[in-house]
């Protein structure tokens, strides 16, 4: 009982600290900025749709309201959001550690392929039929991802370029595997044998495609939050990402912190790949990279790199995607319009100067200087 009350009071003080006026104001400004960014991106997208479509009103209606029109359609939103949630958490871990390791993309591919193969060839039953393939996929992704991460930590090999090369290498090896080695010729496609039913993730709600994968994803988000903000490892990780030199000087092993953040992120992405395959595919048949890795970075940026906000960002992008799919299915507009929105949101949300207080100050300062006909020293824009 005593413990419980102590816990409750701690919880209360935590909430208080989260919602002091200063925090709240920052949160409001940040949230407002994100909303404005989304609004601008939407306006651009509507303009583009209006430009190319014969019936723009219909297209926009499908795009905006389609995903909310029925429980089945909303189920598609959740289904689309699930891999994005994994990818977003993965990107959070990697960005917070101060790296831009793009292998999350290849990790999705490798995780999915290995999970499918483990499910097919181990042929387990019960809960193990799901846990073991997912674990195999995660571990395989982590093992490959260890190479660019370690190379970065040890020899400062640019992790961005090397991880992108790794993506292509993993993809081509995977394509080779599914078209030569583990190919099931009865499928009429370059694909693996069917994934056994015991390994397929269960549907959560009737008449939808939402699987238990969503629950796994949410669990991962909570665990990632606890790891990053409630353990010393997470503290080291964030310190290293924020200021490497400072972290080194206070005795943090920055190499290890960087590697572990990348490995964990890649592991999450590998798990996401496994979940995606076991939830939505009868066979593994990916012939290109799925693109979730890059999307994950966008989700993480929209969520301000906070694991607990990632589900909301993923839900939003999932909603965009399902809307675009419905629009492409029912009208003459391609769903790639989503990528235009995503790119714009990413830039506007990530920009330091867009509607920031510094930006306002800059604008005001410029006005004042212009009135006095004085040139500012060093330029007013140099607030960096």
């Amino acid at each position, binding site marked *: 009982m005593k413990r419980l009350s102590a816990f409750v009071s701690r919880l209360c003080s935590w909430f208080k600290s989260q919602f002091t006026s200063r925090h709240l104001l920052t949160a409001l400004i940040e949230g407002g900025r994100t909303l404005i960014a989304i609004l601008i991106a939407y306006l651009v997208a509507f303009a*583009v749709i209006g430009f*190319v479509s014969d019936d723009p009103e219909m297209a926009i209606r499908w795009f905006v309201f389609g995903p909310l029109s029925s429980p089945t359609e909303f189920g598609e939103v959740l289904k689309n959001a699930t891999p994005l949630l994994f990818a977003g958490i993965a990107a959070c871990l990697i960005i917070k550690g101060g790296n*831009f390791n793009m292998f999350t993309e290849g990790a999705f591919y490798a995780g999915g392929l290995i999970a499918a193969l483990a499910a097919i060839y181990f042929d387990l039953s019960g809960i193990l039929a799901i846990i073991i393939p997912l674990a195999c996929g995660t571990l395989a992704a982590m093992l490959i991802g260890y190479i660019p991460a370690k*190379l970065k930590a*040890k*020899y*400062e*090999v*640019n992790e*961005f*370029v*090397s991880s*992108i*090369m*790794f993506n*292509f*290498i993993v993809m*081509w*090896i995977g*394509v*080779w595997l599914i*078209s*030569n080695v583990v190919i099931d010729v009865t499928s009429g496609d370059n694909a693996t044998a069917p994934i056994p039913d015991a390994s397929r993730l269960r549907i959560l709600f009737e008449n939808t495609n939402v699987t238990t994968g969503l629950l796994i994803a949410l669990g991962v988000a909570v665990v990632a939050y606890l790891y990053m903000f409630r353990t010393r490892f997470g503290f080291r990780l964030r310190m290293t990402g924020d200021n490497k030199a400072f972290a080194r000087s206070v005795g943090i092993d920055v190499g290890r912190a960087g590697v572990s953040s990348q490995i964990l992120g890649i592991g999450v992405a590998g798990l996401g790949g496994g979940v995606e395959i076991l939830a939505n595919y009868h066979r593994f048949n990916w012939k*290109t990279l799925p693109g979730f890795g*890059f999307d994950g*970075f*966008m989700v993480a*940026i929209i969520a301000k790199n906070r694991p607990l906000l990632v589900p909301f960002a993923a839900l939003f992008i999932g909603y965009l995607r399902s809307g675009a799919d419905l629009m492409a299915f029912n009208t003459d*507009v*391609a769903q*790639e*319009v*989503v*990528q*235009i929105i*995503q*790119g*714009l949101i*990413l*830039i*506007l949300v*990530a*920009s*330091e*100067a*867009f509607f920031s207080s510094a930006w306002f100050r800059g604008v005001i300062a410029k006005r004042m200087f212009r009135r006095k006909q004085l040139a500012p020293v*060093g*330029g007013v*824009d*140099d607030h*960096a």
Partner: protein
Amino acid sequence: MTMREFLQLFATPEFYAMILQLATPLVFAALAALVSNKAGVLNIGIEGAMVSAALAAALFSTLTGSAMLGVLAGVFAGILMGLFFAFCTVRLRTNHILVGIATNILAAGLSVFVVYAITGNKSDYPGIAMTPWNVPLLKDIPLIGEVFFTEVNPLVYLAIVAVFAVRFLFRRTVLGVRILAVGKNEAAAASVGISTDRVKTIALLIAGGLAGFGGAYLSLGYMSSFNTGMVAGRGFIGIAAEAIGAGNPVATALFAVLFGAVNAFSLAAQTFPSFTIPYELLNTLPYLTTTAGLVIYSVIRYRKLHPRLAKKEIKQ
């Protein structure tokens, strides 16, 4: 593949002509990476700039009926992407890498979207290929004439010119020196009166233009259509070549040619029926060599740096 066939491959002028073809876009991409890197910007958007340039080139070549105008449109598209990148990094102060990712997402999406809106399919758009040049007299030289002067796309020559133009830019022009100064130390450059924002923007525009040539070459020189996914990481390979070339335009271009050669080998080896390695694995070769090159370069740099660091520590 027997040893003999293997050697035969290296003896054919077609193989070397193929290297030229495959190296050209990589050289442009690497030079683009170099110019932006000198200004202190890691420009990942090169890939996206190449995609949009390739599409714009194909679009305008069929629209105007002239391949040359198509190339110009491609370069213009590249410069526009450079402008966009510059606006985001310089004005909006967004992280370079995030802008790069966003540019690539935008370009990939926009290109498919545009192709679909015009043709109703999502994969390709036809373009008018540039007429290759046959240099009179020189093309009669055995081997060299066949490789360098017979049926060669003009942009191949332009790539060679561009290497030395970039070298000239950084060695002999005021703008080049300013770019170097901004890249080395922005605050110091600003303190002597250089408008760092403007210099950075100009550098990014030049990079965009170079990437634009690379993209236009892909859709109007190497092929005669725009295909989605045709850039296939060439922008990133260019960035890697620049990293290994350590900021030297000639070395950068040579590494780009090396990666082009590996790419040519992986394609040429696929045409040998007796060669048993499947094409999927051969396709990994360019990426594998790029990674290997990057790692070797980084290890050498690390070894070079570290004895000095160790000595310094002992002195203190």
